[in-house]
């Protein structure tokens, strides 16, 4: 009897642990109900309670790591906890849908990933109700450029050789992409359109799989982002042939840009923070300012540098225009 009592106690303890583990990242979500009655928080008072930051991908992924490195500085500036909540599924859209439909009070914000999110609502097959108007973009955080790479012992020593070969032998070279609608996918479409080269695109479930396929010699060309290829490139496992940026990447100074080579393709995975549409402009400005300060913090800069992630702060009209330009680019490329 005593033993089963003891066991009950342990069981209850386990339940509590589970609740804490399961909902530890969730307290902000439940709070609005209680706060509602107290009336709207005015912009001057904002923020007077914890803010929830939705990351639409799993914990430990690129977006998540970047978010967790940013939040301590946001908290310092805003004076309130900023909790990362990973809401996963639907290729990011479970989280984005929740963000779009969250209460527009500035206490729920989230990461938006470009181009994946734009493709997600433009694709007519998905029949989504949300679009760019559903969000109030606050500021951009990371701009990770797309790169072309090959295995270290590949016969292609530079990007010209590769593109020329793909022009002469259309569809013979295979290239990885981290999924339909990823920056790799649309950049390759754009390159094909602008150069007349043709690749056999192999869609995968993520960059780890792409890297394996190329290192194992199953696929010829690796498409990825600077932050992902810096490590394997430093190891000498792969050779990066070109970066799809305006200027050379600080992490890969010896690698030419596609633009230098006369192919005008700029491609990247951009991660920024947005609120649901309808959040008062003062709150957006306040958040943008906090994000700017966090991004410019030397400690944060150093951490991001170690990860090979390029910071790019954009806000207000600049960020809006950037998003609209990306939307237009994707419409043109996909024919939507």
């Amino acid at each position, binding site marked *: 009897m005593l*033993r*089963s009592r*003891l*066991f*009950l106690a*342990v*069981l209850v303890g*386990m*339940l509590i*642990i*589970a*609740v804490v*583990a*399961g*909902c530890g990242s*969730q307290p902000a979500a439940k709070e609005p109900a209680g706060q509602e009655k107290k009336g709207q928080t005015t912009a001057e008072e904002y923020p007077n309670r914890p803010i929830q930051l939705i990351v639409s991908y*799993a*914990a*430990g*992924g690129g977006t*998540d*790591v970047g978010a967790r*490195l940013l939040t301590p500085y946001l908290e310092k500036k805003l004076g309130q906890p900023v909790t990362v909540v*990973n*809401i*996963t*599924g*639907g*290729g990011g*859209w*479970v989280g984005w*849908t929740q963000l779009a439909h969250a209460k527009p009070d500035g206490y729920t914000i989230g990461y938006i990933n470009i181009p994946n999110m734009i493709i997600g609502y433009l694709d007519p*097959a*998905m*029949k989504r109700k949300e679009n760019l108007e559903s969000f109030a973009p606050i500021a951009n955080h990371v701009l990770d450029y797309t790169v072309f790479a090959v295995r270290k012992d590949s016969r292609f020593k530079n990007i010209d050789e590769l593109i020329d070969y793909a022009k002469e032998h259309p569809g013979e070279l*295979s290239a990885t992409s981290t999924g*339909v*609608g990823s920056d790799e996918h649309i950049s390759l479409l754009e390159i094909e359109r602008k150069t007349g080269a043709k690749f*056999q*695109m*192999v*869609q*995968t*479930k993520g960059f*780890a*799989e792409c*890297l*394996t*396929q190329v*290192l*194992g*010699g*199953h696929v010829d060309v690796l498409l990825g982002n600077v932050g992902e290829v*810096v*490590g*394997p490139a*430093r*190891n000498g496992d792969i050779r990066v042939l070109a970066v799809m940026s305006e200027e050379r990447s600080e992490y890969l100074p010896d690698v030419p840009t596609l633009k230098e080579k006369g192919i005008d393709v700029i491609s990247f995975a951009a991660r920024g923070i947005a609120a649901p549409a309808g959040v008062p402009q003062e709150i957006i400005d306040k958040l943008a300012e906090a994000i700017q300060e966090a991004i410019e913090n030397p400690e944060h800069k150093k951490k991001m540098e*170690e*990860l090979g992630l390029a910071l790019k702060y954009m806000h207000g009209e600049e960020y809006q225009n950037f998003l609209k330009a990306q939307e237009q680019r994707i419409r043109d490329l996909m024919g939507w």
Partner: protein
Amino acid sequence: MELTLLQVIKHVFSFQCLIAMAIGVVGGIVVGALPGLTATMGVALLVPVTFGMDPAAGILMLMAIYTSAIYGGSMSAILLHTPGTPASAATAIDGYALTQQGQAGTAIRVSTYSSMVGGLISSFFLLLLAPPLSMISLKFGPPEYFLLALFGLSVISSLTSGSLVKGLISAVFGLLLGTIGVDVNTGFPRFTFGITSLESGVSLVPAMIGLFSLSQVFIMSETAREEKHREANAIRDWRFFPSLSEIKALKNTVLRSSIIGVIIGMLPGAGGDIASWVGYNEAKRFSKHPEKFGHGAIEGVAGPEAANNAVTGGALIPLFTLGIPGSATAAVLLGGLMIHGLIPGRELFTKYAEITYTAMVGFIFANIFIGIAGMLLARYVTYVTRVPARVLAPSIVALCVIGSFAIGNNMFDVWTMVFFGGVGYLMRKYGFHPAPVVLGLILGPMAELGFRQSLLLAKGSIVSYYLSRPISVVLLVLIVASLISPVILERRMQAKANA
């Protein structure tokens, strides 16, 4: 820089590393034992905690959580038929059968020592053979993953201790469920009915929790009135050390499963959930009395248990050498490494050799600690079988709900779990085992992706593409052999009987 073994051992036994290991092992077992809180989540939750730690201790803690969560998942699988992680679903079959026969102590003992040995073997592979093995893991391309998935599906025949047809029906149901979600090649949403959450497919963990755990609650509630027999489940068979006869009976199974676990672990596209089924299947194939499987065979516990813990060391092999995570949990660990500025690859073994080797050697000790901690806990944990159903059932339901929500902070996952709880209950009532459904759900998408990618890469005849790759040929032979061997064996048995 000369790095001596002594230096490394000293570091491993430093205060911070020991504390990190202890937290990792005990925390991991608890996280693992709770359904829905998987090894991946345990590691993800603690990555931020390692920020301020000594890097070696931090990495070691994450590694310890990984392997002990996989072990912890089996405790609840054995005692309550509620696998704590997908990797321990296979253990539930024979482990729970043993519990029902009042042999929970034996099942836990076998599981603990098999897990420990599997983990130990894999940690030695990681320490001594990581670079060459990672080269082998790269040889697996789309065709090999397709064939590996097919090989995994051949396990179904051994899961169906009853009717083969029912097993196949369950598996096909699982495979069909696996077709739900966005088509990887074209991006078209298949069978999603406009539900965003279905776009990434039926979530595996909530489905598994429903099929195994919630359905178990329903069954438990049915028999709640016949409480009396629970008292009989006293663990008279508790013993700290395994008996000689157990060691003798299991050593081959554990060794075989450990090797299987290491190999599957180091493949980036396959992890513990697959390895445990293959380990189970091979244990049955080589068993002298395969008819006992499904009715409480200790090899049926040792097989998957050694395999799923051996996966952990295996999954870290390509992670440390190439930066390619060998499993979902290893992917989160990669984030942990990067945050400490440790970029996987050559530098880990030169510039950061002390950290790396401390973590690897520490991993060996962490596995030993799992054995000790597991056995110390086991004595008390087995009392769960004596807790009355009226307490246990609602507790498991609460854990099921929290666990499926915690996976993605998404209510839809909870409804998924409830739906599969109903499905699982009905299936079990009518003599279908839920295991093949889970297997189909895991292997279906893997087979599809591999096959469709290889169609794109084949350039010409798909048959000659497959036959031109040595590992593909080996896998093909294995598949054919595994399908034909039961028939041949049966013929031979009949011939013998007739003679």
